[in-house]
């Protein structure tokens, strides 16, 4: 019995990990793009990016999943090919919006004196970004990114509302047979995984501790 539950939950957790990894791989770069748009000097682009961020942060991720699952089919008559695609698109867009705001805060927290020093030394904008800003931004965004990424681990459980058999959904199946404990047992998976991530992030923070 335990073995069956374990097997089923582990399979579910592999789905969880897949959503998690694919979301990060998509949202981290897409966040950069949104960040560039939301800080662009061309106003219409900035406004569009800001409105987009507002819409994404202002509505529940669950609603966004439903929109992406159904709206393409209703309006354009191109139904989402798979539920998983809808989940990933929704998660990537949602997390990219949050990440872009973290990046923006990171860029804006760099003191003006850094840009001035780089400028009087003759560096171009791109050289300044690459050699002066990037490492300072990374150091500043690691703590808020860690927070967001840990939230993502748990948000993956939302995917079950449109039928993705992630770990919680796998556990729910057992409740139909009157077996409740697997549901609580899923917590162990999350705790272990979040624990590993926490160790990883504190390792990265320590690595970046050589400067202030």
């Amino acid at each position: 019995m335990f073995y069956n539950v374990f097997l089923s939950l582990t399979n579910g957790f592999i789905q969880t990990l897949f959503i998690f990894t694919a979301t990060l791989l998509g949202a981290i770069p897409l966040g950069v793009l949104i960040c560039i748009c939301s800080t662009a000097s061309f106003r219409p682009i900035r406004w569009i990016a800001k409105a987009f961020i507002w819409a994404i942060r202002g509505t529940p991720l669950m609603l966004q999943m439903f929109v992406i699952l159904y709206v393409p089919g209703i309006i354009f008559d191109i139904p989402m090919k798979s539920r998983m695609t809808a989940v990933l698109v929704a998660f990537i867009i949602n997390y990219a919006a949050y990440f872009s705001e973290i990046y923006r805060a990171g860029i804006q927290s760099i003191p003006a004196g850094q840009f001035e020093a780089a400028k009087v030394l003759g560096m171009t904008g791109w050289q300044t970004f690459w050699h002066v800003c990037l490492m300072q931004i990374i150091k500043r965004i690691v703590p808020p990114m860690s927070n967001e990424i840990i939230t993502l681990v748990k948000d993956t459980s939302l995917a079950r509302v449109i039928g993705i058999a992630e770990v919680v959904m796998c556990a729910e199946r057992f409740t139909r047979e009157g077996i409740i404990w697997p549901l609580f047992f899923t917590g162990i998976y999350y705790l272990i995984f979040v624990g590993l991530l926490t160790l990883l992030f504190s390792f990265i923070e320590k690595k970046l501790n050589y400067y202030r």
Partner: protein
Amino acid sequence: MTVIEARNIHKSYGKLEVLKGIDLTVEQGEVISLLGPSGGGKSTFLRSLINLESISQGSITICGTPVVIDGEYQHNTYTSQAYRSLGMVFQGFNLFPHKSVIENVTMSQMIVNKASKKEAQDKAMSLLERVNLSDKRDAYPCQLSGGQQQRVAIARALAMNPTAVLFDEPTSALDPLLTSDILKIIRDLAQQHLTMIIVTHEIAFAQNVSDRIVFMSNGSICEEGTPDIIEHPQTAELRSFLNK
């Protein structure tokens, strides 16, 4: 050779006119101290010369290259080389915190002047020796005192072989004990005839080190001349500034 020629510089922040027609010519090897009450526009003027602020009227020529003509900024393909012949040392040091002392000094040599790593490091080490910091080459800025950070900043500016260096209150963020170290370094540079404009509140130092003193108040130059003007101020403004 004339290093900097500024004519009729005007600058406003909104309705507030901060520079009201400044003229200044700096010859090669000249050391000029810029004195004046705070809020008088000294920083704004210095920053305008090196393109950290944009002026609304006037002309600036650097090492023979006109960079602003009657308020018109020239294209940076013509001006970037000229701006590179000026260095600047800030009140707040502005070192790059994620780079070690030596990297702070080598970085722009390698990136901007395309020096090899070896060349850049040799030069950095000789400059760090000059500012007495060769033993801190691998430290990070946060591990240094303010005075040490400012010495690195001076080495970093000198590493670019500037024709002139602008100092904006280089000792104002330091406590008095550390101030004298920095002043000594600037004095050494003056003896080597580096062209400098120094904004400072150290009047005795200015009197001692400068070829010329310029007193700025309220957006205009009120009085300028040899260091004697400290002993014999002609204007009421300079007199009251010195008495306070």
